Structures are given as structure tokens and as C-alpha cells.
């Protein structure tokens, strides 16, 4: 059997086993975590060891041509997803685990693996949908109620984004000539749709509100996985827009700059390290949006850079689990360095399709993202007692290793130039300075724009309710009641009785008799 088909199916089978087995064999809660970790290890092993491969799916399974393809992009995606899920799985095995259920985590992994390997519009769409809703299930599996607000915002954005992706692949199917890689490229309208879908589901400002809110509210396992929807959005869009979107490079730059500036401002105003991390992730997502128009690059650099940037960001929630010491410092330093170098490269990658005069404007976005990550790392105080050091320390290194691998592969595969290295020192130094000068204080609620959007949505819903239920619905129901009254025998009886009484009254009778007499006379004359 081809290993590529096993990648999406194995987590599904494991999830089914975990869901059904408690009815027959009692399973300890920690066992679920080990199952997740094992499935994730398999994903990593396939990504690292299997040669490039392609498995064409029979046409009976899908609409149009679709295949599972293991290429450089898929490899980077699998390493990222495998690394995130491995860490989350190991976190779920801890005695003090208060995270989501393993079944939903496995379902999300299945979707993520499908997306990583998918080739062909409808299969990519299916992977994006499965990964997105799987992650929503992971959030909803959290204990308590704090996650609800973020989850609600996330799922609304997800649904709207899904519809945009649907529109994109539908239009691309109707006009296949325009999506041929060798052709003139997609029309700008479809590119806008694709990038809009990415912005909505990828936590890119201004659609980022759920990220900081979520990170504050969830367990470490879900916090680690919160980089996954950003990654899923990016890899999905890379597959749907294989040539990037050079014509929209300037627009993406403007949006990225605005998003990074806003994330920087709002992130520095946060009291919680987790909320700052959420903004750092939003700034990182904005950086990836900036790099996307240039396409994946010759050696799929963008995919490796995404691995580095997102794995580095995902490692930070684990820092609080480590006690102070050199291991913690090493993990943080490696993560920041990998993030900074990858960010600088992403900015340089984006400059390839930007007009020469503004090519360097991508660098501030990379610096802002690394700066925020540095501040988040500095604000993350160790919560671990000294005797728990070893286990947590090694756990935190898992995503860091993937971040370093991603940065290394991208830099070795294609040398971006020394200027790309500037973002790391600039970002980290500025972050340290900002941490010193701007002590954490609760100046802004996590989620900032989310509250405004929530209020607007609630108003729209209220208007819809008033329009449909109170106005149209009531008017229609009243009309129906009136018409049905014509159908009511008892009411007819009352009406006829009323008419009868009126007719029996003498003026009515006289008039009636007069009418009859006149009618009879008329007939006789005729």
C-alpha cells in the first residue's frame, strides 16, 4: 500500500479506535496522547524518509483530477504538522493535562495531512475544510468556557473563507484555461478571492482577533496547535495559487505593513505573554501574506520558511513549562534566531516581485514579527517547579528543532544574501529594548477589533431577525391566518347567521322584497 494514502487514514482510524474502544476496553486518558504522538511521528517519518512520490486518486473518489503528492512543499507542511501534533500529543500525556480530547486532535491531524499532500482543487478544498473544522473541534474540546468567544469568531471566519475557496475552485473549473501553470495566470479577481480567503482563515490582520483571545484561553496543547490553522491557510493557498500572485504584490505589502504595525502596537499593549504571542503569530501570518505573491520559489523556499516561522512561534507556549536555566534560554534563543532569519528571508523573497523602490519595505514586517516574539518570550515567566525541569525542557525543543530545520533548508537551498540576516538581530534587539522600556500592563483587551466585529455581527443578526421573523414572518402569518379563516366552517356558520339576522330585520327584508319584485317585473316584461 502506498504510504501517502496511509497518512490521512491512519489518524482517522486511530480516532475511530479511540472513540469506540472505551465501550469494549477501558482506555486511560493519557493513552490518547500517546496515540496522537505516534501518528504524528509517522507523519514526520514519511516526510523525512520517503522519496518524492505521487498517488493519483481514481476519478470515482473526486471531482476532477486529484492526487496525493509528496514534493518539497508537502514535505515542509508534513514536518510542520507532524512537529506540532507530536508536541501536542506529548503534552496530552502529561498527568496535569487539561487539554482537548485526543479524538478531535487526531481528526484535525488527518485533515492537515490531507491538505499537505493534496493536489487538485477539490481535494485541496477538502483538506482545508477538514483541517479547519478539525481545529475548531480541538478548540471546542477545551474545558471551561473561556475559549468560546475565540472559537465563535474563528468558525465564522472559517465558513466565509471556505465559501471563497469554493468560489475560487468553481471559477477555476469553469475556465480551466486560466489556471494552467504555463498560461497567462489567474485573473486578478480570482487572485483577490484566494488571498482574501487566506486572510480570513489565516489569522492575518484585520481578521486576527481570535488568535490572541484564543491563546489566552486555552491549554498548552491547543496553544501549540494554534499555529496550525495559519499553516493550513498558507499551504492551501499555495496549492490553489501555484504561481503566487505577482500582480497583487503591492496590495499584499500594504496589507502586511498595516497588519504588522497594528499587531506591534496592540501586542506591546498586552499584559499577558500569551496575548502578545497571539499578536506575534498574527504579525508572522502578515509576513507570510507578504511573501506569498512571489510564489513558492525554486526550491519551495516559502514552504520551508513557513515551517520555520510557525514552528518557532508555536514553541513559545511551552517556555512557561520550563524552569529557568540554560535549557530554557537555549530554546528561546534558537526559536528567536530561527524566526528572525526565516523572517528576513521571507521579506527578501517577497522583494523579488515588488517594484525596486519599495522592495525593502518588507523588512519592517519581519522585524515587527520577531520583535513581538521576543517580547512574548521575555514576558513568559517560568511556571514550572525545579523538579519538573527535564521533561518539559525536552518537550519545548521539538518545535524549535523543526524551526531550525526549516530555516536551515531554506537558507542552504537558495542563499538569499546577507541583507536577509538583518531582521534577526534587529528584531531581537528591538524586542529586548521594548521589553525593558514598555513593561506589561493591561492597556488593551486581547482581540481588539474582535469586539467591534462581534457587535456589528450581532446588529446584523438582529436586523435579520427583525426583518424575517418580526416583519415578513408576522405579516405572512397574519395573512395566512386571515386566509385560513375563510376555510373555517365554524366562522362561516357565524357569518351566515349574522347575515341571516340582518336580512330578517325589516328594512333589509323590505329592500330584499323590493329587489325581488323589481326583478320579477323585469323578467315578466322580457
Amino acid at each position, binding site marked *: 500500500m502506498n504510504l501517502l494514502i496511509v497518512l490521512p487514514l491512519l489518524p482517522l482510524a486511530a480516532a475511530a479506535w479511540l472513540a469506540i474502544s472505551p465501550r469494549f476496553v477501558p482506555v486511560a486518558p493519557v493513552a490518547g496522547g500517546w496515540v496522537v504522538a505516534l501518528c504524528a511521528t509517522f507523519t514526520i517519518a514519511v516526510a523525512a524518509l520517503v522519496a518524492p512520490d505521487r498517488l493519483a486518486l481514481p476519478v470515482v*473518489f473526486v471531482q476532477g483530477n486529484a492526487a496525493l503528492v509528496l514534493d518539497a512543499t508537502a514535505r515542509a507542511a508534513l514536518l510542520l504538522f507532524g512537529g506540532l501534533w507530536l508536541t501536542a500529543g506529548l503534552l496530552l500525556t502529561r498527568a496535569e493535562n487539561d487539554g482537548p480530547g485526543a479524538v478531535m486532535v487526531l481528526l484535525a491531524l488527518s485533515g492537515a495531512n490531507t491538505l499537505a499532500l493534496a493536489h487538485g482543487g477539490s481535494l485541496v478544498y477538502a483538506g482545508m475544510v477538514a483541517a479547519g473544522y478539525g481545529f475548531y473541534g480541538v478548540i471546542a*474540546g477545551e474545558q471551561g468556557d473561556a475559549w468560546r468567544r475565540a472559537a465563535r469568531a474563528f*468558525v465564522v471566519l472559517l465558513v466565509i473563507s471556505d465559501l471563497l475557496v*469554493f468560489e475560487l475552485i468553481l*471559477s477555476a473549473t469553469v475556465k480551466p484555461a486560466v489556471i494552467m501553470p504555463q498560461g497567462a495566470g489567474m485573473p486578478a479577481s480570482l487572485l483577490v478571492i484566494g488571498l482574501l480567503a487566506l486572510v480570513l482563515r489565516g489569522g492575518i490582520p484585520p481578521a486576527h482577533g481570535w488568535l490572541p483571545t484564543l491563546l489566552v484561553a486555552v491549554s498548552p496543547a491547543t496553544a501549540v496547535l494554534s499555529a496550525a490553522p495559519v499553516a493550513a491557510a498558507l499551504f492551501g493557498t499555495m496549492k490553489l495559487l501555484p504561481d503566487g500572485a505577482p500582480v497583487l504584490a503591492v496590495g499584499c505589502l500594504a496589507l502586511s505593513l498595516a497588519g504588522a504595525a497594528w499587531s506591534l502596537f496592540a501586542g506591546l499593549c498586552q499584559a499577558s505573554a500569551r496575548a502578545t504571542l497571539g499578536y506575534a503569530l498574527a504579525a508572522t501570518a502578515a509576513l507570510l501574506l507578504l511573501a506569498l505573491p512571489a510564489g513558492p520559489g525554486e526550491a519551495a523556499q516559502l514552504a520551508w520558511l513557513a515551517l520555520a516561522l510557525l514552528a518557532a512561534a508555536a514553541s513559545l507556549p511551552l517556555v512557561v513549562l520550563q524552569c529557568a536555566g540554560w535549557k530554557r534560554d537555549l530554546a528561546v534563543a534558537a526559536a528567536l534566531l530561527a524566526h528572525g532569519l526565516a523572517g528576513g528571508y521571507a521579506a527578501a523573497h517577497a522583494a523579488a516581485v515588488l517594484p525596486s523602490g519599495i522592495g525593502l519595505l518588507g523588512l519592517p514586517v519581519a522585524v515587527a514579527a520577531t520583535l513581538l516574539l521576543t517580547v512574548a518570550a521575555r514576558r513568559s515567566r517560568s511556571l514550572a517547579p525545579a523538579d519538573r525541569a527535564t521533561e518539559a525542557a525536552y518537550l519545548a525543543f521539538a518545535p524549535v528543532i523543526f524551526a531550525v530545520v526549516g530555516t536551515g533548508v531554506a537558507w542552504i537551498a537558495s542563499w538569499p544574501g546577507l541583507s536577509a540576516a538583518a531582521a534577526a538581530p534587529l528584531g531581537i534587539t528591538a524586542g529586548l529594548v521594548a521589553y525593558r522600556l514598555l513593561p506589561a500592563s493591561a492597556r488593551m483587551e486581547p482581540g481588539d477589533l474582535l469586539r467591534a466585529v462581534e457587535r456589528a455581527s450581532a446588529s446584523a443578526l438582529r436586523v435579520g*431577525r427583525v426583518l424575517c421573523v418580526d416583519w415578513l*414572518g408576522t405579516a405572512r402569518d397574519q395573512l395566512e391566518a386571515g386566509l385560513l379563516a375563510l*376555510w373555517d366552517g365554524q366562522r362561516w356558520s357565524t357569518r351566515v347567521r349574522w347575515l341571516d339576522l340582518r336580512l330578517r330585520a325589516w328594512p333589509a327584508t323590505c329592500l330584499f322584497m323590493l329587489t325581488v319584485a323589481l326583478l320579477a317585473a323585469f323578467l315578466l316584461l322580457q
Partner: protein
Amino acid sequence: MSFNTWLPVLVLCSSLIPGLVIFMLPERATTLRTTLNLGGALLKIVLLVLMMIGVFHGVDYEFRVPLVPGLDFVLHADALSLMFVNLSAVLWLATTFYAIGYLEDSPNRSRFFGYFSLCVTATVGLAMAGNLLTFLVFYEALTLTTYPLVVHRGTEVARKAGRTYLAYTLLGGVLLLTGTVWLYSLTGTLEFIDRGFVAQAGVDPAVLRMVFLLLILGVGVKAALLPLHAWLPQAMVAPAPVSALLHAVAVVKAGAFGIVRIVYDVFGIEFAASIGVTLPLAMLAAATIIYASLRALFQDDLKRRLAFSTVSQVSYITLGVAIAGPIATIGGLVHLVHQGFMKITLFFCAGNYAETLGVHKVSEMAGIGRRMPWTTAAFTVAALGMIGLPPTVGFISKWYLGLGALEVGQHWVVFVLAGSSLLNAAYFLPILRTAWFDAPPAEWPEERDYGGKETAWLLLLPPLATAAATLVWGLLASMPGTPLDWVQFIAARKYAP
């Protein structure tokens, strides 16, 4: 007359005769009643398989008896009618299984199952009607056989809902009758033929538009087109198997099927488009889709929410037909089958919740997935299908509808589909979240004990089977023998040059 001539009559009789016999059975004759029900359902499926093979190879199945000079009673099995008959037969079997479990201890079971079989007979007759007169006969028969099912519980609310149902559907019948008589006076024929018979008559298009309006309003009542849909949510007082049958197979689908017949086999799709009646029909369907979805959003009663969802989803079929293109036709027609399977799953599940735990409202469903995981899994698959997510059949329908709309340049339809999906997500996803992830209450409203099992097997198996079909036909949509395959066969005939 050959065996092929009698085959449509045999299909009709396979539910008619058991239905009539069941009326005469005493309440305690459970085994005989069950045998007759299931035997009839299985026989019907066997006969239909024979007919499908025949139709695929070009065999003509027609039974014709003269009624009055120039007008015959005609049963004709073509690809389109067999699609609907098959849907009815398969879901009848599933619903019969379910109803046996659901009504285990209920009174008046012979009456219920008798009318149940007659209702399916009327649906099958309507599907195989070879002309508008035969269609009208079975259309009215369907009204009369479903009314006793709606009022089966005998409560005041049920009787009120029954009156409303009767008022609406008889009004629809009168409109359809008027349109039929008028059309006959204009054309001298009522025979259904591919690409319609009206175009050849040379009648003034303004008059034909009026006839079209009357006919569409007549069948639109049962298809629950806006603003003629209000009977449907009220009819939810009926027992769950009846709701399932009304929504997935019989009444609503009969209306939608009627629209298909009128557009394709009475007017002909090209002619209907040329006299400008398809665009208003598509717009009415679009308005119904959005309005009913918005209404569903604000319903706390689970069955009422599902009812408004039906109003919305059935209009997809009308929309697909009215867009007037081969791909959209595939989308619309295949949704007739797909929606049937998805919606019957949802109603079976709603019935299970009500019967097992006494849960009727969405607000009571917190943690119900932990108590009834299999039922909720089936509900989840069907709900995701309704939203149109891959790999369920809902995605296939929506895909072809969207593709068909873009193919003929009707881009606004894609926005309607997107809006509908958004609203579907808005009223189904909260149910799924609360069912799977919220903590269950200490005790359920009216919990029944099934010996440690989730619920009775007869209640659990039908929704699992229909949910599995929803998933498998979505995953293997392009495989021979699937509804999509059969509908492509139909569309090829309807649009053949």
C-alpha cells in the same frame, strides 16, 4: 399486453395492495403487518431494479388506459421517473424499519401503516405519471393519503396543523387543475414528452406565462416555495417517520418533481427560457433559499429548524432546474436524491432524540453526543452535508449547481449558494458544538431505558444507513450506479440535440 406493460402497475401495486390489506388487520397482528410492509418495500425495489436495467438499455415501460376521449391514464417509466421512484422505494424501506421501532407501543398502527403505504403508492404513481392528468390524480391522492398521517396523533395541535396542510395543498390542487384544464384547451394534449409539448402549439406567450404561473403555484405549494411554505413547519406535529417521509420523499419532493416535469416535459426548458419564465422562477427559488435559512436560524424547536431547512434546501432543486443548463440540471436533480437522504437522516435522528431522551429543542441538546454518539454521528454527517462540505453528497450538489450557474453566466446564483451555506453553517454548527462538546445535564427530560444501549436497533440502523449513503455517494460520486451517474444519464437525454 406484455410483462413490460404491466411492470409499472406491479410497482404501484407492491405498496397499494399491502396498504389496503393492512387497513383490515387487527392491531395485534404485528408480525403480519411488518411482513406485508417490508415484503412490499422489497418487492418494489426488485421490480425497480429490473426497470432501471431496462430503461438503461432503451426498453419502454408504459401502461395506458383511456379515461375520456383524447385523455388517457398513463404510467410511464423513464429515467427521470425511475430516479424519483427509486428514491421513494429505498427511503420507504428505511422509514418502514424506523416506523416499526418508533411506533412499537403506539395505538392505531394499522391505520398508520395503511396510509403510509398508500402515501408511497401515490408518490410512485405521481413519479410514473405519463401525462399531466395522471400526475394531477396522484397529486391529489397524495394530499388525501398524507392528511391522516399528519393528524395521526389526534391532538388539537395536530388537527389544526392538518387543517392548514389541507387548506394549502387543496388550494395548490385547484390551481394545478385550473392550469391543466386551461393548457389542455390550448394545446389539446397533456402528454409528457422530452423537450415539452407546448412549444409546438403556437399559443400566445402571454397566455402561456399565465398557465405556467398557475401550474408552478399549484406544485409550488407542495414544494414549499415562498410564500406558500407555511404548512410545512406546522406539519411537524406529525410523528417523526411521517416528518421524515414528508420532507425527504413524499410531499415536498412531489412538488419539486412537479416543477421539474412542468419545466422539462410540459414547456421544455429552452421554450420556457425563451418566454422568460425561468429567471423569475430561479429568483423565487433564491428568495426561498435565503428567507427559509434565516427563519431556520431563529428556531429552537429542532424539527421546526429542520423544516425551515427543508424549505430552503428543496428550492435548490427548483433553482437548478430554472437556471436552464445541463450542469445546473444535474445539480438540481441530483439534489432531489441527495437532499432526501440527508434530510431523512436528520429527521430520524431528531426522532431518536425525542423518543429516547425526550429532547425536542436545540437548547436541550447539550452533551447529547456523549449519551447518543452513533445517532449524533449520523446527525453530524447529514448536517455537514447540508452545509455542503466535502466529502458529503451536499458538496456534489452544490458543486454542480455552482458550476452550472457559472456556465450559463448566472453569477448571482453562486452568491445565493454561498449565503445559503453560510446560514446553514450558522444554524447547524451550533447544534453540533453543543451536542458534542457541552456538558450533558444531570438528567434528560424523558429518558427511556433500552437496556444500556443507546436506543433501539430499529431506530438506530436507518439513520446510520442513510448517513453512510450520504458519505459514500459523496466520496464515490463519479462511480457508476450512483445518483450522480443516473442524473447525468437523464441530463444527457433532456439536453440531447
